[in-house]
């Protein structure tokens, strides 16, 4: 009688240990899959949403912008993540002027620079 109880208790203990091992294994695999998934997703986002260079971003949106300049920050963030032209896809807040891309690329001036004094 007591031996049967001991066997039953041992079976339960082994089943519990097996269950705990299964949970540990599943957790490990999920952790690895999450880390790998994060890396793959980051690469996928970089492919699908090609960003701008980090040097270009702060020029449009200063990182130290306060709450009042938040709309510009949002637009800038979108600009960085947008796949199309930032000037056309990410409008700034209504109070801020919208940046427009120049129609032509800048060229060097043929003539020499001239200065004019403030006098009449």
């Amino acid at each position: 009688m007591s031996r049967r109880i001991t066997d039953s208790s041992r079976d339960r203990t082994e089943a519990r240990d097996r269950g705990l091992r299964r949970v540990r294994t599943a957790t490990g695999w999920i952790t690895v899959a999450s880390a790998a998934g994060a890396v793959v997703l980051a690469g996928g986002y970089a492919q699908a949403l090609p960003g701008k260079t980090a040097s270009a971003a702060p020029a449009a949106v200063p990182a130290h912008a306060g709450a009042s300049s938040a709309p510009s920050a949002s637009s800038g963030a979108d600009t960085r993540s947008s796949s199309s032209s930032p000037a056309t896809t990410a409008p700034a807040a209504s109070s801020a002027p919208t940046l427009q891309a120049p129609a032509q690329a800048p060229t060097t001036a043929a003539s020499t620079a001239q200065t004019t004094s403030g006098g009449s």
Partner: protein
Amino acid sequence: MSALLDNPLWFATRATGSIALVLLTATVVLGIAGAGRYAPTAVGRFEVANLHRNLSLLCLALLAAHIGTALADSYVPLRWISGLVPFASPYRTLWVGLGTVAFDLLLAVAVTSAVRLRIGLRRWKATHWLAYAAWPIAVFHAAGTGTDTKLGAQTTLYVLCVAAVLLACWWRLYHAGPGHVAARAWIAALSVVVPLAFYAFMVSGPLAPGWSHRAQSLAAVSVVAGRR
């Protein structure tokens, strides 16, 4: 690949946020499906409970990485307080604030779960219901904040997350025994209202033109209201 190397924190924020949402969904699904009267035969109930706990901890770890990379990325002016105090972020105040609310709720659930023997089962269970509130808030945060919502794969991910929780809800309701009619009616109603609200939000919000401008406009309105 150069975009990834140029802005690794920005893309890490997106990736960890998406994975955290998937893990939160899996945690909620296990919590809904595994806590009912139905007992699975292939695996022990304690296995489901342990996996539920481990997934929630992993989710919190990824959320910490999500918030940490967002704060470390100097492009968007977020301060550490934005990660803890809701609606304190100058960037998309409402939508980032929803994420903060979800994080705070999950943090409360995790802390009360750690001391559940001290606070008693009834209080712990009452607090644990906050996790069900945190999940839809997290989904709206992801769809509203993420500038990648218009990507087909990203939209599919959100739809799959919503569908998984819906299925778990209906499965739980199907296997639930008699009683708690009012609670079950509420859950059934919510399981219909929340997806419909999410669909309407997606169509009129992130998937509609000019969302990035409108999302920030909402933030500007809330900032002005907060100053008053």
